[in-house]
């Protein structure tokens, strides 16, 4: 058992910012992260043995990243890399699997900064090798300084497509097209006042757009990928326009040849640990789906558990950095250790409000213009792990189209290794559509530990708790099965 003032889950932008703030108030910090090196997705760095020349466009965030990493060398900070926080047995205790064993960390307060992953949107061919996520493309570029193909289409919805497209161009790739579902050009004028709230970020966005323009990359807005083609690898993608009512016009399909297809439909916060301990969640599609309900101090509904960054609501790196600091500041206040809290809070909140205006403008600009379920064919795989197709779900649906729990247990959907991260959102949409209910009203299958897969051997060192029968999902929480 490790005792610490503040435990932070995730060493990305939000987690590192939280750690930096916490040590400034004299707190001891334990930061557990599932990557071998800190940085998360945004500040992901090339492997240590690589020696950079510092001149490359890809090194532009290295200075900011290194400044953030400094906190890991602070005497009050313990960094546990390659660690899976697989359970919160109590709201102030982390079960951490690392280095072939599981240990526990007891904390005065917790900051959950678990980040996000790509929102999965199934369409025919999305399981083909060569079809990769926007995050996956960024990680090849940032973490390995590699590109996935020679002629690449980047398709989906959201600002990340332009970031990935521009990065690929900088890396010398022939980007065959950017296919953005939202009609961003038509929405630009309305979004402009909000975008001007953060001029630095706007300049960055213009730089990405300019990079694409100069390279002559066709940016096809108001269109979507409808199918990826190929046998052992993707070799082409079909794209189609979306009309004003959000319908996909399949009479005007175009085929674009490529040897890799990067898909990004926005991001989904990793909220499973918060779901596990019963934090209240609300459904906000514009910010990634299910989000923890937070106080103005970024505390969840479970006292002492704070949430910051993209793991709490999609907002991007600048918001994550500020929220991380604010969450740690509030935790320090709670622990009676904060110095100059009101001055710091005011300064950080002021900055955050400005970037929030920019964020809302971006959200309006990229609001999804169509229903992604329209992309499904009967043989489209929805659950990648257990290979459950949309047709199978519909067939079960005709027999017993009633609940997510039922469809999960009859098809094995969401029972694979990704634990539903790639299919649960689609299942929810399907059930909501067929029942005419909003997603927010659906009963989700109960989240249970381990929050991420761990090896059985990791548990050999777990302290053994007195035996207790697990609560049945169909019974009220806590009621024992007899």
């Amino acid at each position: 058992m490790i005792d610490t003032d503040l435990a932070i889950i995730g060493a990305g932008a939000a987690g590192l910012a939280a750690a930096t703030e916490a040590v400034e108030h004299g707190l001891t910090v334990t930061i557990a992260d599932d990557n071998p090196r800190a940085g998360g997705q945004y500040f992901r760095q090339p492997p240590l043995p690589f020696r950079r020349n510092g001149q490359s466009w890809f090194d532009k965030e290295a200075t900011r990243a290194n400044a953030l990493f400094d906190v890991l060398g602070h005497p009050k900070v313990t960094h546990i890399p390659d660690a899976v926080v697989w359970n919160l047995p109590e709201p102030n205790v982390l079960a951490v699997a690392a280095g072939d064993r599981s240990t526990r960390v007891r904390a005065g307060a917790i900051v959950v900064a678990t980040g996000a992953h790509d929102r999965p949107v199934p369409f025919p061919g999305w399981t083909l090798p060569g079809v990769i996520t926007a995050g996956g493309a960024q990680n090849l570029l940032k973490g390995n300084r590699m590109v996935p193909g020679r002629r690449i289409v980047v398709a989906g919805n959201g600002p990340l497509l332009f970031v990935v497209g521009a990065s690929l161009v900088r890396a010398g790739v022939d980007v065959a097209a950017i296919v953005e579902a939202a009609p961003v050009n038509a929405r630009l004028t309305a979004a402009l006042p909000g975008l001007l709230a953060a001029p630095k970020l706007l300049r960055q966005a213009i730089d990405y757009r300019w990079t694409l323009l100069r390279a002559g990359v066709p940016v096809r807005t108001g269109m979507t990928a409808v199918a990826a083609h190929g046998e052992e690898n993707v070799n082409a993608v079909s794209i189609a326009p979306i009309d004003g009512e959000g319908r996909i016009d399949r009479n005007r399909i175009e085929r674009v040849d490529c040897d890799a297809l990067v898909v990004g439909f926005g991001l989904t916060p990793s909220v499973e640990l918060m779901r596990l301990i019963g934090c209240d969640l609300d459904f906000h599609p514009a910010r990634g789906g299910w989000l923890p309900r937070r106080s103005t101090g970024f505390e969840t509904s479970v006292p002492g558990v704070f949430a910051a960054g993209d793991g709490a609501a999609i907002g991007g790196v600048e918001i994550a950095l500020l929220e991380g600091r604010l969450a740690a500041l509030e935790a320090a206040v709670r622990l009676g250790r904060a110095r100059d809290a009101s001055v710091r809070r005011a300064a950080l909140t002021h900055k955050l409000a400005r970037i929030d205006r920019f964020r809302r403008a971006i959200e309006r600009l990229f609001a999804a213009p169509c229903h992604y379920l329209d992309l499904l064919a009967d043989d489209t795989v929805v659950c990648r792990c257990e290979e459950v197709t949309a047709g199978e779900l519909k067939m079960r649906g005709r027999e017993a189209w009633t609940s997510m729990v039922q469809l999960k247990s009859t098809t094995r959907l969401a029972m694979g290794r990704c634990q539903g991260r790639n299919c649960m959102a689609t299942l929810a949409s399907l059930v909501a559509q067929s029942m005419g209910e909003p997603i927010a009203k659906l009963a989700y299958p109960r989240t249970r530990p381990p929050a991420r897969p761990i090896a059985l051997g990791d548990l050999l060192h777990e302290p053994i708790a007195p035996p207790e029968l697990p609560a049945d999902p169909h019974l009220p929480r806590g009621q024992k099965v007899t």
Partner: protein
Amino acid sequence: MTGRRVDDGLDRGQPFQFFLDGEAIVAYPGESIAAALVAHGRNVARRTTRADVPRGYFCGMGVCWDCVMVVNGTPNVRTCRTEAAPNMKVQTQRGVGEAS
């Protein structure tokens, strides 16, 4: 997909070899197995249980488990999260755990 390494003046250190189903693959210290395979144009990590179709690198951040392979005899190793090492034996995985 025929991936490749970006040449932007980065010094990647001394290359070494590992093996994919017996074929020699070049990697640099610190690269993930999946990345080295992508750079070599080998994108199929495994074949699935039910439909026997190919899968490869997808999420790149350890979430999707689609890039699992048999590494030095151990199945279900996420190759996007595992560094390549000299003489490592990597095999295309079939179903839930056999090497094909």
